[in-house]
Structure formats: structure tokens, C-alpha cells
């Protein structure tokens, strides 16, 4: 059994519990063990774009030390924003020995200093590069034939160049996963568009506009549901659909799932093991599986 140090991040312990729960379930089926890092701290959620403020990256250093304390050289992430922030901050720190030494200076209470050698990975990369689509296909007991799935990448999973899991303008990793599960990937125009992210606090209207546009785009392209990899996108284009429906006459929503939840269905796991409560979604997918 392949084992990975696992970094959950704050939201997978609160509003995004279903993501973590379903990830544990499907990695279990694939023989991957996720070992949660002890005493992890928040990643900071957004990578600082300043060149003169090294302090903004300190949260990442401490998390990387936790990974090395486990004797690991790789860390598995699920949340797109954690992945993006940890990966970019880690590369920013590790690429400059002076910067690494400066930040290690603040780690005086740690027994280990950070070596700069940890690699930050996303579960989607591990599924593609370590597990392989064939292996995933072999675990499918309920092929989701006929189900049309729109893969939503948003920003943090693909941008900017070098920070993503795949090609930044034409990623295929989620569509390949969807095909492996027996479902039909939908080609749609808004899969790389930002949902408005944290503007959900400061500019709610912006997010509602984005949600309406993104969900409608998926729907018009023939999707039955949307899958994604970010608990903030899930809130914005999932939970907020109810508010869009209140203000936009004729708006029709779509179920939004984490990609791990869709995998779980295809692997024959129960909805409750995957943290899915919405009856309509369960009905939609199970009918497909039975077909």
C-alpha cells in the first residue's frame, strides 16, 4: 500500500468535510493510505504575490517541516487553494538558499530545519501519474454510463503557469478521470473561469453573477452535474445557487460534487460514506449506475 503524508487544510475540517471523507474512502479502495500530518497549520490560503514580504510564506515552512518529521518527501493535498499556496510558496522558498535560511531562522522552536526538498502534490496528479487510469477503471463496479459531467477547474488548480496540475489552458486530468469512471466528460467553455473566490465575503454580487454564468454554461453544454476540487468553489458555485435562483428568473441549477464523491459512486460506495446528502443528486447518479 502506497502511503502519503496528507495535508487537509482548514476548510476540509469544517464546511468541506465531505471532500475529506470521500477522499479517504476512494483512496482506500485504490490502496493509498493518507496519513494526516500532525499539528499542521493553515497554509495561508492565498500565495502572497509580493517579492519583499517573505514573512507571508512562513506558514508553509512550518507545514513542510511537519512533512519531513514524518520522514516523507511528498505531501498530498486535496483543496485546490491549499495545493496552489503550498506549492508556490514552497518553490519560492526552496529556490533561494538565502530566503530558506532566513525563514528557517524563525523556526527556532522546531527540532528540524526545513531542507527545501518536499514536493507538494494534488490527489488528481497522484491518480494520473502514480495510480493510472487503467487501475481506476478496474475498480469501477458501477460505471456511470450516460452521466454527463462538467469538470470545473477554476483558477488554483491550473494557474499560473507551473503552479497547476496540468496544462493551464487545456487541462484534461479531470475529464480523463470522468472517462475512467464510465461517465461522459462535457466540453464546456467556463471550466477555467474564476468563481470569484474570497470575494464571496466582500463582493457577494460578483460571486452570484459568476455562479449564474458558470452553472448556466455547464447546463447549456449538456452537463448533468459539475465536479470540482475546491471547497471555496463548492460554496460559491454550489451552495450559492439557491441565492442565484432567488434573484434570477429561470435559473436552473446543477448538482455540484467533489471529484472524489463521483469516484466513490463509481466504486460502488454508499452516498453516506461519501458525505452526500442531497437526495436528487443521489437519485440522478444511482439511476445512471444502474443503467
Amino acid at each position, binding site marked *: 500500500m502506497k502511503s502519503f503524508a496528507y495535508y487537509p*487544510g*482548514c*476548510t476540509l475540517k*469544517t*464546511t*468541506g468535510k465531505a471532500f475529506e471523507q470521500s477522499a479517504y474512502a476512494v483512496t482506500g479502495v485504490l490502496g493509498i493510505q493518507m496519513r494526516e500530518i500532525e499539528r499542521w497549520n*493553515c497554509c*495561508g*490560503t*492565498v500565495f*502572497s*504575490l*509580493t*517579492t*519583499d*514580504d517573505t514573512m*507571508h510564506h512562513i506558514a508553509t515552512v512550518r507545514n513542510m517541516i511537519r512533512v519531513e518529521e514524518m520522514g516523507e518527501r511528498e505531501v498530498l493535498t486535496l*483543496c485546490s*487553494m491549499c495545493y496552489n499556496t503550498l506549492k508556490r510558496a514552497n518553490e519560492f522558498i526552496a529556490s533561494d538558499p538565502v530566503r530558506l535560511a532566513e525563514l528557517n531562522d524563525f523556526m527556532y522552536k522546531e527540532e528540524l530545519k526545513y531542507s527545501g526538498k518536499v514536493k507538494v502534490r494534488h490527489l488528481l496528479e497522484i491518480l494520473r501519474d502514480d495510480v493510472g487510469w487503467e487501475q481506476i477503471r478496474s475498480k469501477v463496479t458501477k460505471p456511470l454510463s450516460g452521466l454527463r459531467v462538467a469538470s470545473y477547474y*477554476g*483558477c488554483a488548480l491550473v*494557474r*499560473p*503557469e507551473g503552479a497547476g496540475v496540468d496544462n*493551464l*489552458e487545456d487541462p484534461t486530468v479531470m475529464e480523463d478521470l470522468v472517462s475512467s469512471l464510465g461517465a461522459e466528460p462535457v466540453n464546456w467553455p467556463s471550466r*477555467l*473561469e*474564476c468563481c*470569484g*473566490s*474570497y*470575494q*464571496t*465575503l*466582500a*463582493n457577494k*454580487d*460578483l460571486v452570484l*453573477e*459568476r455562479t449564474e454564468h458558470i452553472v448556466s454554461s455547464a447546463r447549456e453544454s449538456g452537463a448533468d452535474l459539475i465536479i470540482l476540487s475546491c*471547497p*471555496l468553489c463548492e*460554496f460559491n458555485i454550489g*451552495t450559492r445557487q439557491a441565492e442565484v435562483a432567488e434573484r434570477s428568473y429561470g435559473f436552473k441549477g446543477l448538482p455540484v460534487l467533489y471529484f472524489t464523491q463521483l469516484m466513490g459512486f463509481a466504486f460502488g460506495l454508499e452516498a453516506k460514506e461519501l458525505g452526500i446528502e442531497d437526495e436528487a443528486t443521489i437519485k440522478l447518479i444511482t439511476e445512471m449506475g444502474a443503467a
Partner: protein
Amino acid sequence: MIELGRHTKSRRDILDKVERISEVDVFACYQCGRCSGDCPSISLMDIMPNQAIRLLQLGEVEAVLSSKTIWVCASCFTCTSRCPKGIDIARVLEALRQVCLRKNIDQLDLNNIPEEERERYPTIAWVSALRKLSG
């Protein structure tokens, strides 16, 4: 009325600071407008991203610093990824935000968020909004 082309010392200082924080040369921009065409948040902006860059080139830093644009940007990196001149526009906007935030001028008043809303927001939204919009 905006008088163009006036690089006074104080304006030059702010522009220098923006270029230092971002390590981006705003004078590389030739105004193709690709950044604005692809920006998903453009509808709530008062000046477009390419206009912001042009105003900086002209030394009109106050017009950009007082715009809604720099606070509406969510750093999705679409502009950065697609600029044909390789200008990292997201970094320029971050530097502009930092010029304000380093003076402790916050853009997020948590009192404006209704209580019933607070309960449901994901942790990740709080952390990122506070990091991006407060000093």
C-alpha cells in the same frame, strides 16, 4: 480633469514602489486589452485592467490606487497567464493593494457582513479575504 503625463516625484516614488514590490515593468504593456477581455470580474470594475496599467505608465497613480478595480480582482491569474507581453498583471494589482494596506487602510469591514451569513462562510473565504483585503 486628469492632466496626463505628469510624473511628479511623489508619483514616481509610488510607481517605483509598485515595481519594486511586484518586480513587474508596467512600461512593457502595449495596450492590446487581452487582460480586460478575459477578466471574469470586469463587470464590477470601474477601470479596466489595461487602463490601470496605462494610467500607471502615465504617472496617474492616484487614479489607480483609488479605483474599485484593485479590490475587485481575486487574483485568478487569467490576465497573467494570457498577456502576450508576459506582464504579471495580478502581481501589479497586488502591489497596488499593498501600497494601501501597508498604511493600514483596510478594505474589509467585518461588521458589514450579516450575522446569518457569517455562520455559513467557509474558513478558507475568511482567511483569504482577510489576507487580501486587510493590512
